[in-house]
């Protein structure tokens, strides 16, 4: 499908000829994303091509584009760093708004600890600038290469430092929002013209409309600026990094500690999580390594920490009895970074952590505290710049059994999740990394209380049978979760997308209690009366009259 010429000209006049394209090769590049092969038509990593791609450079341009789309009945889909299939357009006659040019960090208010950013200001750049003034940002779980603004408004929100920093929706303050009808809404104190510092009010908070547990996902207009609360960073203004790729090192500042804890079993793990919440320790805490599978992750990490080694060495390494012992020891890991705001603070946190370990039967894995490994893990956890490791084994990863809840609940479902993945791994069509490939932050919300875990499923996207196995596994897992009475978690959404547009709609309509999807229909009708924006991942059911 091509844009009507008149519409194209209007759009070109808005962004300038350099910032709009209908070049088929570029459109194909925007249709490409990881995971697309899991959704109908299950073909490859290409889904639907946009009819054009635009690169707006300002809120004014975004607004003009959205208004033009309303006028010419063209759909649009914004994204920032666009990592993941949510990003692309879902239907024909849709243009892609790539917000790459809107990448500024407009302000860092050091005193009041917030940053005002445009959508393409990434976690890595925000962190680097914030550190210069003794602050830090909640790095999204997807890492330094993605946008905290998008993470907070539109997709996920929890990450490794959430326990100390808060969820990225919690850190949202004022937001500038080009709504689907082209009006601009500024939320909170920003809407009253008094600054960015408050995300709520006046009265009820309109930012209620954009977030929920998963976010707007590019379906509710465009968020063009936001203020994000920052947190204190008691480390150096600039990270002094050395080493060779990929094993870069950061030496521990005096008031930092990093440990990989390990526990005898799931229950002890859960108990430790509770104690960490209650003790109010931890700056970053994330069950990271096991995303690469209980059976392979420890060896993988040792391989990774040696620049002379590659994945080709892994099989041989796993024959080493010492590495086998280490693998066993790392069976129930929980890495944690402690950061003391003062020397007394770090001393206290260490004592508390030691006490928790005694109480739960856990211990610190000695190997992970060897100097080079400690330096690698510290940098890894602070900058969170190695997230593409999700795909290291074969280029394919999908999250499954992605739940959140109390640690006691996590323990319940984790064991079901482990069995299910093991069964599918045994077919040989997935990577046999071990049934426990669960990764996630100890805190889904600030201060903890709820944990989030995601079962990593590694497969080969270039192998059709591997792809089919994953689709089957996800659909079965969603069913199994339902049979166990578990919450839908985030897998329901993945499963819905796998069913395709019609299948997912039929499923939503069949649910006995689908009232919240009806509310979402009403909200969307109110926000987007011309239905200009895409709705592919904004789940709705039209209320029956």
């Amino acid at each position, binding site marked *: 499908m091509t844009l009507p010429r008149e519409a194209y000209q209007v759009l070109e006049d808005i962004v300038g000829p350099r910032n709009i394209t209908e070049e088929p090769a570029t459109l194909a590049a925007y249709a490409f994303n990881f995971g697309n092969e899991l959704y109908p038509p299950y073909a490859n990593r290409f889904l639907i091509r946009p009819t054009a791609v635009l690169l707006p450079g300002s809120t004014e341009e975004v607004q003009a584009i959205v208004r033009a789309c309303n006028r010419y009945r063209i759909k649009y889909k914004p994204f920032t760093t666009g990592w993941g299939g949510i990003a692309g357009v879902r239907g024909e006659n849709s243009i892609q708004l790539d917000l790459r040019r809107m990448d500024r960090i407009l302000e860092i208010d050091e005193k009041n600890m917030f940053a005002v950013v445009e959508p393409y200001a990434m976690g890595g750049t925000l962190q680097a600038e914030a550190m210069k003034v003794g602050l830090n940002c909640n790095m999204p779980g997807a890492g330094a290469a993605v946008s905290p603004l998008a993470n907070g408004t539109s997709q996920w929100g929890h990450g490794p430092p959430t326990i100390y920093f808060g969820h990225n*929706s919690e850190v949202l303050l004022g937001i500038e929002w080009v709504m689907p009808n082209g009006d*601009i809404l500024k939320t909170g104190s920003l809407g009253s013209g008094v600054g960015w*510092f408050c995300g709520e009010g006046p*009265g009820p908070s*309109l*930012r209620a409309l954009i977030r929920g*547990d998963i976010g707007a996902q590019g379906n509710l207009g465009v968020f063009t600026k936001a203020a994000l609360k920052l947190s204190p960073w008691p480390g150096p203004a600039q990270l002094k990094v050395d080493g060779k790729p990929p094993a870069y090192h950061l030496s521990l500042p005096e008031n930092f500690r990093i440990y990989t804890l390990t526990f005898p079993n799931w229950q002890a793990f859960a108990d430790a999580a509770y104690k960490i919440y209650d003790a109010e320790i931890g700056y970053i805490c994330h069950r990271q390594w096991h995303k690469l599978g209980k059976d392979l992750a420890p060896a993988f990490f040792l391989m990774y920490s040696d620049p002379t080694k590659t994945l080709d060495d892994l099989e041989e390494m796993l024959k080493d009895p010492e590495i086998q012992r280490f693998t066993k020891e790392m069976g129930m890991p929980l890495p944690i970074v402690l950061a003391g705001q003062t020397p007394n603070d770090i001393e206290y946190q260490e004592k508390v952590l030691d006490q928790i370990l005694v109480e739960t039967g856990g211990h610190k894995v000695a190997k992970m505290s060897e100097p080079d490994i400690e330096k690698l893990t510290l940098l890894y956890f602070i900058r969170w710049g190695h997230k593409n490791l999700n795909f290291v084994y074969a280029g394919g990863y999908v999250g499954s059994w992605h739940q959140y809840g*109390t640690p006691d609940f996590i323990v319940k479902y984790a064991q079901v999740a482990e069995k299910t993945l093991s069964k599918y791994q045994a077919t040989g069509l997935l990577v046999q990394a071990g049934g426990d490939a669960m990764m996630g932050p100890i805190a889904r919300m600030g201060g903890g*209380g709820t944990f989030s875990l995601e079962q990593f499923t590694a497969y080969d996207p270039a192998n059709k049978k591997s792809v089919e196995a994953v689709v089957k596994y996800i659909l079965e897992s969603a069913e199994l979760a339902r049979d166990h009475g578990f919450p839908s978690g985030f897998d329901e959404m993945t499963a819905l997308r796998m069913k395709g547009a019609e299948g997912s709609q039929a499923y939503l309509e069949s649910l006995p209690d689908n009232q919240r999807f009806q509310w979402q229909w009403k909200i969307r009708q109110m926000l987007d009366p011309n239905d200009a924006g895409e709705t592919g991942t904004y789940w709705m059911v039209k209320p029956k009259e």
Partner: protein
Amino acid sequence: MIDKKGDLAKIVGGQYVLNDPETLEAYSKDESFVRPRKPLFVVKPQNVDEVQGIVRWANQTGTPLVPVSSGPPHFYGDTIPTAAGAIVVDLSRMKRIIKIDPRNRMTMIEPGVTYSELQPELAKHGLRLTTPLLPRSNKSVVSSQLEREPTLIPKYQWTLLEPLRCLEVVWGDGSKLWTGEAGERPPSLEEKWRLDLAQLDPLGPGQVDYYRLVSAAQGSMGIVTWATLRCEILPRLHKLFFIPAQKLDDLIECAYKLTRVRLGDEMFLVDGSNLAYIVGEGIDEIGALKESFPPWIIIMGIAGRSYLPKERVEFQEKDAATIVQQFGLKLMPAIPGARGEQVLEAIISPSKERHWKLSYKGGCQSIFFLTTLNRVAEFIRTMYSVAEKMSYPTTEIGLYVQPLQQGVSCHCEFNLPYNPDNERDVSKMRDLFTQTSEELLRQGAFFSRPYGIWADMEYNRAAQTTMMLRKVKGIFDPNNVLNPGKLCFG
């Protein structure tokens, strides 16, 4: 002819539909200057089914409803009917503490539960709830949290809605929704609890944060019939310190530093007058305390909880002392007229009878808004300037500044005592309140909880917000039965 009383009696029972003159009079007004108006009835439902029944009935009959959960004295006018023929829905009968989950530090309570009722029960399980500053003993916890009353421990405020988590809401159209993770499978609370789920995640369900829509809504979007809250661990050791200062600027900088490094627990700033109102009783005692207290004071609590409580208090006390010294200040366990233990006891308890704001002169107006700490001094100057113009003694003004959301913003409150029985005082106070509010608004104060006259002031400068809120109200309360006339709703 609709028999409203009869209809309501069928829903809640005859003895819980009240329209005697004393009752109607009591609900018709409060401590604010909002114009009094009598409701038609006061109904007192027992459970969510009755609440839903009332709301559905209200939709059918076009009857405005005004939800109320706390007992008097009310201060902000939000519980006074704006529309004629309104029914007050008094939720104070709904007093169940449905669940206390110590492991997950969660409590689920109905709207009639007060701080006085809740805290002792939580204490039995080693928990407590972070409170605002001296809530009255009959203050509904749910109502306080819903209205975003600032709580005393900034480091726990991940958002301004903390520690509120999930809700059961009856919307204005009579439908019911469980918000947050409570709205997810499995469908019943018992099934959720069997899975060890604890209704702590407030987001959603789905792609809307419903709990934010009823937050600071003055009951105009939905009626909350239970709420879950995240509790703190009851301190095993708890000390309170004073950081007095002659110059406000030093104290502000000190407050910034302390909140930034998340030292301590309770942390707020008062002037000597406000501390006197908190600590003293009666005009004489309060008068004497005002004389002896320093002009500006940070009140800082340090608590030791489950882990190494003694060590925690010790190191935090040391670190706090070092930090305050950088600003030429001192961390002190007592000041002339007040000891730490005494003030601690006061601030972690509900207010004594005769609400602390009313103890001095019988009446008090509070002007409060949100801003950032670095702007507090200029707002104080404005307050003083208007007060002086209107011959209101600045020594009477009680300042309370509560750092919020881990230091990003702060609640700035001016308490203005006056004699409500003196017509001239009342008239002057009304003018002072109005003029000061207007000037503060112009200067950049953010009335995020827009009660009374603040509503028009705030919404007049936020046109897009106003339009959107009305549209949202149109979805959740299409017949405008819930507290019409409040906020920006007609």
